[in-house]
Structures are given as structure tokens and as C-alpha cells.
């Protein structure tokens, strides 16, 4: 393997990692606040991809100039998923918010199965492979040191880091973010100081779900295969990435996504048959060295 190949491989890993990072970012928003293993996050990705697909295929969208169409597709997918996310939270998670954490895991699995099997009925099981949405016709977009970079790579990476910055700003510098962090620390205390907990959590879900939708559309653009089960694996990978990065830590989730993507790509090159095994071995080793994730704060237990 020469240097170009190595660089190309690195680029591929980063591109795949970008997708994981983007998904993990949305995952981590909800996860950070409620410690909820939102099994349905992957399925929201799927719903987002389908929404984007249908909007992009709609006659109204087809007539629009590219930037407008692009914005319309993302906006409608994100809005639709945000509403769905709020609905799911209201029906399946809020009633059991004060129950053991794993109870919500089961309703999340229920929601996930519902969306998957419901999707197979509504959308059919056959994958759609023709998302009519692209940035440029030029392909690859550019070459740096013979490393090919496509528009989708840039879109995914740009999207990931923009959204990361946006979310970080939101969480760290706004009142809403402060309320989120307060709830994450102690929900009862948050109630007591007058935070409208229900609203903040609903908004958090809306945010997380719209991030899922955005990553769904980007996933479908990069890898056009839209089917009702498309979100299952990315959802699990996002969970892995979020935990690997450190629970509730947004930059950690993104970092975890990149580590996962790079590990899979590089291992996939050298031993494609053993890819998952080796990638998971690396993850476990990282966790053994850093038991609270890459960027997770060591939770010093109060004794």
C-alpha cells in the first residue's frame, strides 16, 4: 500500500466516520439529557430518509433550483421527524420517565419495531436507490495528493462540524441549554427551580430527531439505499459511538463516530472478513483503558 492509498483509505474512514458522527450527535443529544438508550433513533433516520426521498421526488421540488430543493428536502425531513420525535416522547417515554431507565429501553425497542415493521407495510420492503438530490454533477469534486474527495464527503463533514458547533453553542451558551444540562444533572431539582421540564425534554427530542432526519438524508445521499430497516445498524453504531466518546458528551460522540468509522475502514481494508470483530476489539480495548469513554468525565462517585 502506497502513501496515496493510505491517504485515500484515511479519507474514506473519515467520510464514513462523519456519517457515524452525525448520527451519534443526534443520539447523544437525547442520551445526554435522559440517559435513554433511544433504540428508535436509527428508525428516525429511516423516516427522515424516506421523507427526504418523497419530498425530493415530489413535483414541486423537482422544478426548484438545486439550492432551494436542497433546503426544502432537509427542512421538511427535519421538521417531520421533529414532530414524530415529540410524539414518540409524549406517548412512549414521558409516561415512564420516572421509572427505571431500562423500562424506557423496552418502549424504545417497541417504537423501533413499530417503525420498522410499520415502514415495511407503508413504504414496502423494496429499497429505493434513487434519491434525486445532489450537490454537483462534478465527480469527484477535487483531488488532493491523488486523494479523491467527493461533494458528499464535504457535505457530511461540513454538516457534522457545523451541527456540532451549533449544538455545543446551544447546550453551553443558551438558557435552553442550561435547562437541558440542569435536567441531565437532577430532574427534580430542575423542576424545583421552575424549569418547564416537559417542554425542555420535548424540545430536546425535537432537536435530536431533526438531527436524525438530517443524518438520514445525508446517509441516503452518500449511500442511496432507502428501506425500512436501513436505520437499524447505524442506530446501533451511533449508540456505540456515543458511549465510546463518553456518555452525554457531544464532541465525544463525534470523536467516537470518527474512531468507529476509521477503525472499520482500516480494518476492513486489511481483513474484511474479520472487520467487525477487530473493530469491536479495538473499541473494547479503548474502553478498558478509558472506562468512561474517550472524553467522558470520570464520574467520581460521592462516598
Amino acid at each position: 500500500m502506497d502513501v496515496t492509498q493510505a491517504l485515500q483509505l484515511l479519507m474514506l474512514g473519515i467520510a464514513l466516520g462523519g456519517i457515524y458522527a452525525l448520527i451519534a450527535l443526534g443520539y447523544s443529544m437525547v442520551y445526554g439529557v435522559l440517559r435513554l438508550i433511544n433504540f428508535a433513533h436509527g428508525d428516525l433516520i429511516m423516516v427522515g430518509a424516506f421523507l427526504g426521498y418523497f419530498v425530493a421526488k415530489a413535483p414541486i421540488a423537482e422544478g426548484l433550483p438545486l439550492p432551494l430543493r436542497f433546503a426544502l428536502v432537509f427542512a421538511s425531513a427535519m421538521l417531520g421527524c421533529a414532530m414524530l420525535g415529540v410524539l414518540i416522547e409524549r406517548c412512549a417515554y414521558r409516561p415512564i420517565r420516572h421509572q427505571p431507565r431500562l423500562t424506557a429501553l423496552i418502549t424504545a425497542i417497541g417504537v423501533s419495531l413499530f417503525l420498522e415493521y410499520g415502514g415495511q407495510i407503508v413504504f414496502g420492503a423494496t429499497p429505493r436507490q434513487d434519491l434525486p438530490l445532489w450537490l454537483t454533477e462534478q465527480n469527484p469534486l477535487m483531488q488532493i495528493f491523488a486523494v479523491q474527495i467527493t461533494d458528499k464527503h464535504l457535505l457530511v463533514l461540513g454538516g457534522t462540524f457545523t451541527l456540532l458547533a451549533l449544538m455545543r453553542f446551544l447546550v453551553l451558551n443558551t438558557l435552553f441549554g442550561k435547562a437541558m444540562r440542569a435536567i441531565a444533572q437532577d430532574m427534580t431539582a430542575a423542576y424545583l427551580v421552575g424549569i418547564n421540564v416537559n417542554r425542555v425534554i420535548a424540545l430536546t427530542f425535537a432537536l435530536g430527531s431533526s438531527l436524525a432526519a438530517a443524518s438520514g438524508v445525508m446517509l441516503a445521499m452518500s449511500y442511496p439505499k432507502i428501506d425500512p430497516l436501513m436505520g437499524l445498524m447505524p442506530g446501533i453504531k451511533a449508540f456505540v459511538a456515543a458511549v465510546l466518546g463518553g456518555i452525554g458528551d457531544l464532541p465525544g460522540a463525534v470523536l467516537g463516530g470518527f474512531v468507529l468509522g476509521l477503525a472499520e475502514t482500516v480494518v476492513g481494508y486489511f481483513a474484511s472478513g474479520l472487520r467487525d470483530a477487530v473493530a469491536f476489539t479495538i473499541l473494547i480495548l479503548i474502553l478498558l483503558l478509558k472506562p468512561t469513554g474517550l472524553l467522558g468525565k470520570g464520574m467520581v462517585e460521592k462516598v
Partner: protein
Amino acid sequence: MTTGRSAFATVLLLALRYSLLAAVFAFLWLLDRAFAAQLDPYAFYLLRLIGINLILAVSLNLIMGFTGQFSLGHAGFMAVGAYAAAATSKWLVAHSPALAHSPVLQSLVFLGVTVLGGLAAALAGLVVGLPTLRLRGDYLAIATLGFGEIIRVTFVNLEAVGGARGLTDIPPLGVTPLTSHFLWIALWAAVTLWVIYRIVRCTRGIAFQAIREDELAAGCVGINTTYYKVLAFVLGAFFAGVAGALFAHDPDQRYINPDTFKFMKSIEAVVMVIVGGMGSLTGSVMAASVLTVLPETLRSIGEYRMVLYALLLIALMLTRPQGLLGGWELSWRRREEISPDDLEQPLQPHRPTGEPLLCLRDCTMQFGGLVAVRDFRLALRDGELVGLIGPNGAGKTTVFNLVTGIYTPTAGEILLDSRRLDGQPPHLIARWGVARTFQNIRLFKELSVLDNVRAAFVHRAGYSFWAAVLALPHQQKREREIERKCLALLKLFGLHERRHEKAKNLPYGDQRRLEIVRALALAPKVLLLDEPTAGMNPAETQAIMLLIKRLNDEWGLTILLIEHDMRVVMGICRRVVVMDFGEIIAEGSPEQIRTDPKVIAAYLGELTGVETTADE
């Protein structure tokens, strides 16, 4: 001691119990013959599937429900068991044609093969458990998920067992003229239930739930948490492996491929445990039955069945958030109650020698740049009652954490008699005679008052798990002894009436007292009390203080007492050590302390107005 039951009666009772067991199996066998004689192969198959899922759910419940370790890799253990057993039996059948002609031999071989599957999985459980169990919560979940996938990928790449194409033509060894496969599954399901039921119910098994409730506190009552966590993993994996072996040999299956043991299979097991109720074996049995049968009953609605299944799952959790049965357990034998009236004295009076018992020599504890404790020296003499006071953040609790092994001092040494404590794990220090309570109460909240105290006897149970599983006489006798001891202690503190209540339901003051009882149950040489009166009203405070004094006066127990409130300590301690900013600023009799200008300054805050939180 109280019963005059002769050895003969005991043997008779045991014989009766086992003959009952035999009768149950005879009934099962008849049932099996009835089915095999052919009623309904479909129902029969579902019944077997229920049995396999039951074993999976119950074994995972030991890991998740009882020990509180979130595992997402149970299907991996099942795969190991399935492959090990199936490959072995295929090889055996190919190499010894005689097998088919002898039902007895074949049954024995099948028993061996299932056990082998279980052992292989248990080995995998050990390999997975040892490194990963230092992880907690979701970090552990991810690691187990990873191991599950690693195991599966390994089988995909193992051409010797068919690789991705799977292992075909697995001989249905469980089916002989004498037995059907159902009998084997029923037998193993019964064994799984019995073993896990007996284990979690006996005193040694309290360890599992204690770890779930509070791992740190469990260590401080002498429980080797690592050992029990690994044990839970190994045992759970063993039975999951057995389930895998039974699945592979099912006459309607006889085929396995790595796909069967995907991540979703682990999720299915997790769903069964939680739907049934964490820590309820009865619940796991119910959930395994309901969740296996439900998709089948929904067949009539065709493609909508999984959608409805998903909705039912959500509805079920919304209406029964604790699972079908919560932590409730079906129990068919009432525990024989011990009357609290004829209990022996729980504590043996000890004549203090006055020799130095616990010594801290120049102990320093540094967290990053923060020095929580600096050059701490203290010699606690046998029979002493010493107060350790100081403002918030002075480093008092850190001293306790150093002594009990929660922290290892950055410098200095700690000795009990002449034994070094520093660097030793909490459970050993607790066993050697240092017991403690916690500033913010750390009881095993979901356990009964009695079980909280029994937890201190885990390491002195004096019998093996085998004895507990077989309910051998010496184990039963020992259980009664332990219970009597616990009750006597509880009675001393007036808690025996509430022994069956959950610890979390006790009033605050009783919770504090229970924590002291739990510490005393270790029969410690030194008792460390961390603000035992915090949050109590003056009357309660008074009562506790009198009791502490009694422990010291009447039974000669050596006590180191942290108090925030100076007045309390002054009343009962003959010697007081004052800390501020991690250092000892004064030491002496209450009178000396009271007038010491440095102490006054520390308390009135003349030296500093800022409180640090070094002891947290």
C-alpha cells in the same frame, strides 16, 4: 440449637424432599410421553421454544436483574454453547455408530453434550467477564455487545463449523424411545430455575443483589464484588450455553448458523428479562412464555402482526413499568419465622487492651493538584472512642475512604494491629475488622432490612453454592444461625419488627440505625461512623449518641466517629481530633479542643471564608 431435631429426622426430611422432586420429574416424563405419543407437534414445538427462551431469560436475569450488570451479549454465549455442543455431537455420531442403538447411552451422551455446551459458554463468560466487568452501565453494555459480535464473527469465519452456511444435520440426540427433546428442555429449565433460585436466595447469594444496589457499600461489607460479578457472568453464560445446545439439537431445528445469534437475539433476551421484571424469576418465566407465544397467536392478522406486537410491547411497559411482576417472586414455602424473644446476645463483650489498634502514619491523599489529606497521623487504641471533627471539606471522609480501601493513599501507611491496610481492596479490609457507615446513607435499598444485615455474612456463610443448591442440612442450619444473629442485632437497635420491609421504606433515622447494624454484623474490631446523626432531630441524635456510647462502654468496641457538629462529639468522646484543609489542626480532650484558638478560627471561619469540597 433451639430445635432438637435428630439427624434421623433431617435425613427423612431430605429424602422426602428429593422424592417429591423425583415425583415431579416423573410427572414431567408422563407429560412428555403424552406429547410424544402425539397430540400437537406445533404446540409441542412452541413449548420447547418457550423452555429455551425461559432458560435464556432466567440466566440473563441473574446477570442483569440480580447483579445489575447490563449485558447485551447473551446471544454470543448461546452461540458458543450451540456450536460447541452441535459440533461435538456431530463428531460423536459420525465416529460411533453404536450410539443410535442404545437409548441410555445416547441420553448420557446428550447430557454430556449439553453440559459441554454450557461449560464452553461459561469459559467464554469468564473470558468476557474478567476484563469487562470493571466497566459500568452502558459502557459495559457496549463491551458485551462487542463481545457478542466478536463471537459471532468468529463463527462466520470458522469453516470447520460451516462458516456462514451454518452447521446442518445436527443429530437430534435428545429424541430416544425413552425421552423426547421436550423432556430435556423441561429438565434443564427446571434445573436452571432451581439453581438460580437457590443461589440468589441464600445468604451467599445476597452478594449479587447487594452489588446491584450499591457496589461500593457491598465491598465495604466484605463482599468480593469482582468475584461475584464474574460468577454471575459465568453462571449466566453456562445456562445460556445450555440453551444454545438445546436449541441446536431441537428436532425441528437441527441447524444453526451465525445469523441466529445476531444482536437482536440478545435484545430479545433483554426484553424478556425487563418485561418479566428485573430480579423476578417468576416474571422471566412468564415473559418468556408470553413473548414466545404472542407472535404466534397474532399470525391470523398477517403482515400486521409485528406492528401489533410492537404496540403491545409498548402498552405493556406503560401499564406495568416495573415489568409483569416487578421484583415479586413466587414462593411456595414460607420461611419459618424465628421468634425474636429467645435470641442470644449478639455482641461478645471485649475487654479493651488499650494497645494501638488502628494506626495511620503520615497519610497523604492527593487528587490531581488537590491535596485532600496531608500527613495525617492517628493512633486509635483498642477500646477508644475518638471523634474526628472539622468543617465541611476538611478531609474527614477522605480519611475514612483511605482506611476502608476505597482510596489508596498517595503516601503513608495504614495498619490494623500490624497488618498493612493501604493498597488492599475494601472487601478484605472489611473482613479484617474495619466496618463503616456512610455520610449519605448507602443501604441496599431494594433489599429487606434483614437481607441488608445478612449481606455482612456473605463471606462467612460457611458453605458452598453447591450446598445451597442441594439444600444440604449444614447449609440450612447455617442459614438459621445467620438469621438468628441478624435478628438479634436488629433487635438491639429496635429494628426487628420491620425486618421484612424494604430498606428504602424505613424512616430516615431507622435507615441510619440499620447502616450501623449492618456494620456491626461484620463483628468489626474498629467501627467508623460517618456523621451518624446527620439530618436527625435533637431527640434522635441523643438516642444514637447514647447507643454509640453503649457500644463503646459495654462491648468495648473501638470507634472513630466523624461529626460535623462539635457539641455532639464533645458529649461522648474522650479524645477529639480536629481537621481543617486536610490537616490535623488540633488534638486532645474535648475541653482542650473547645478552647483551642485554631479550632475556633476554623469553625468561625476567620482563617478562611471559603469551603472546599475536598472530602467529596
